[in-house]
């Protein structure tokens, strides 16, 4: 029993990272209806920004902020240079999806040219493991989980209780209707992508902290798991995505801990295929709902 709870504790750490990444992905999807295949690169760039700051003597907080800023800038750039233009031209979801695959290829290889293709070590002092209830966590892991919860709560407040959040929900439900009602849909979409980029960049930072190494490709690999969580929870549905992220994160940790970590990705996609085949709209979606309900 004790061992099960320990694994659950590690699973919660993975779930925290995964949920943030999946939330960011869902935000991007909700306002543009584009599944952004270059989402993983937001995480990667976040990790590299944090790494650079750390190399120049920055602390954990500064690294985290740099990661968020880097991710935000990248998301804004991808939205402005590709996604927004495609959406406004009425180029449909699938072609834009293919285009973001091209964007992902570009970003990955720019990073390869700048930093090299090999793994970089991201060493942070983890702190001694502490026993909290039945769980065993290091300081870094506690920081990861606490910050993830705080960001999620903050995001909830923004989406649910601000004017911008209201516009976001309106645009995600019906872009044309939102525009007719006087909402500047393009601006809302840009800001949402910025917000998603901030979260995604930070997710990349905590991913690097938790794994300890990263490369230009690590964001893309993690994105594949993110996709599992986001699609299982329901594309564009925030609460579903959050729950999907937690379930997939914990499930992967149990699978990796008890069977074999090498097959994690295969296992994630097995879950995903099952979910898509049985409930293509996601596990927690019933009827018409907005992004944060």
């Amino acid at each position, binding site marked *: 029993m004790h061992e099960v709870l320990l694994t659950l504790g590690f699973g919660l750490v993975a779930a925290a990272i995964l949920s943030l990444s999946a939330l960011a992905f869902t935000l991007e999807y909700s306002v543009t209806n584009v*599944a952004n295949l270059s989402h993983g690169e937001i995480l990667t760039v976040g990790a590299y920004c944090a790494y650079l700051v750390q190399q120049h003597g920055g602390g954990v907080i500064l690294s985290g902020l740099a990661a968020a800023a880097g991710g935000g800038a990248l998301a804004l750039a991808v939205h402005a240079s590709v996604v927004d233009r495609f959406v406004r031209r009425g*180029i449909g*979801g699938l072609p*834009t999806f293919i285009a973001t695959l091209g964007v992902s*290829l*570009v970003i990955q290889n720019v990073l390869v040219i700048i930093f090299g293709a090999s793994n970089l070590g991201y060493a942070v002092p983890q702190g001694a493991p502490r026993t909290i209830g039945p769980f065993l966590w290091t300081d870094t892991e506690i920081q990861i989980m606490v910050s993830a919860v705080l960001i999620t709560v903050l995001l909830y407040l923004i989406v649910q209780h601000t004017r911008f959040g209201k516009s976001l929900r309106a645009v995600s439900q019906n872009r044309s209707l939102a525009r007719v009602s006087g909402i500047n849909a393009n601006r809302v979409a840009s800001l949402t992508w910025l917000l998603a980029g901030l979260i995604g960049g930070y997710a990349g930072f905590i991913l690097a902290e938790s794994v300890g190494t990263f490369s230009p490709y690590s964001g893309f690999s993690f994105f594949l798991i993110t996709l599992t969580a986001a699609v299982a929870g329901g594309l564009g549905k925030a609460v579903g995505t959050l729950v999907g992220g937690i379930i997939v994160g914990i499930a992967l940790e149990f699978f990796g801990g008890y069977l074999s970590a090498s097959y994690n990705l*295969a296992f994630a996609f097995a879950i995903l*295929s099952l979910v898509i085949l049985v409930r293509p709209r996601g596990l927690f979606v019933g009827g018409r709902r907005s992004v944060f309900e």
Partner: protein
Amino acid sequence: MINYVVSVLTEGSIFAIMALGLNIIWGWSGDFDLAFYGYVALGAYMTLALTIGAPTEPTTYILGQTLPFPLAVAIAVVSTMVLAFIVGAIALRHLRGIYFSIVTLGAVYVLYVFAGQFVPLFNGYNGLSGLFDPMGDSFGLDFNSWPFFYLGFCAAVLIAVLVIVTRLSGSRFGLALRSLREDERAAAAFGRNIYLMKLKAYVIGAGIGGLGGGLFAGYLSAFNPSAWSPVETIVLYAAILVGGRGSNRGVVLGVAVMVMGLQEATRYLPEIANQPSFAPAFRLILTGIVLVLFIRFRPQGLLPERRMRDEDPADRGGAALPVETPIVGPSLDTGAA
């Protein structure tokens, strides 16, 4: 120099074969299949496992036969089609658009992880090797003359594939596939069995991909998981998109531009110290940019597919002036997600 030209042309022919296969799935049937390179890889692995003989310690892999190369490739193609049938039967049943793409991406990653991690299958990350100059001995060719022979062989296969896909393209099956791509519901209303047709196209396309993979194995003499990262699929898609989606001539042109042309264009890039991966990375950046620009500005490609009409000659007499349909490529967005 001449050796270099021969190797570029051989690689080009092989990639053209793969792209023609993918074109059936994406160009005609309209499914954005991210698992395609998995079929190429399986074709290559099977060909190797069937030709290089029993495994010696410490390598382990299945089969381990010493069949003649053409027979091995044929068996590889069949096994590829079986795999494509399984994946396609699951993924094509209800899924379209990005959901189909995501499931096929998952399928290829499952294959990738298994090929890499499950050592008894195809020797894990080290992969298989040892197929030297296939068919060279039976024709009495040596190390120098074999590449010329193999170029001829690949070119001959490419021409055969081209003839077959061109016939298929104008056939009722080819036309019907395009009707699915354009409007699935309308095609269903006209009595097409959409699932069956899409599945058929998927299996045929994957089989051609497996054929390309088999030839690729003969050319490389080895294959391992690092040779088939999903990036390769994107390169094939870029080639199809640039050449003209749905059009066979366009696809061949696209491969010439995107695979061979880009290779040449980036070959003389200056070597940068400590950056062995500069040229390939730069090539992929260009591929990505070209992909985005073509989707945005010229989705029909350089040599657009011609609209085909199934005309009954008997109708000609009665009709007034034939209506000229403009030559436009297929629309990229087929069916909502």
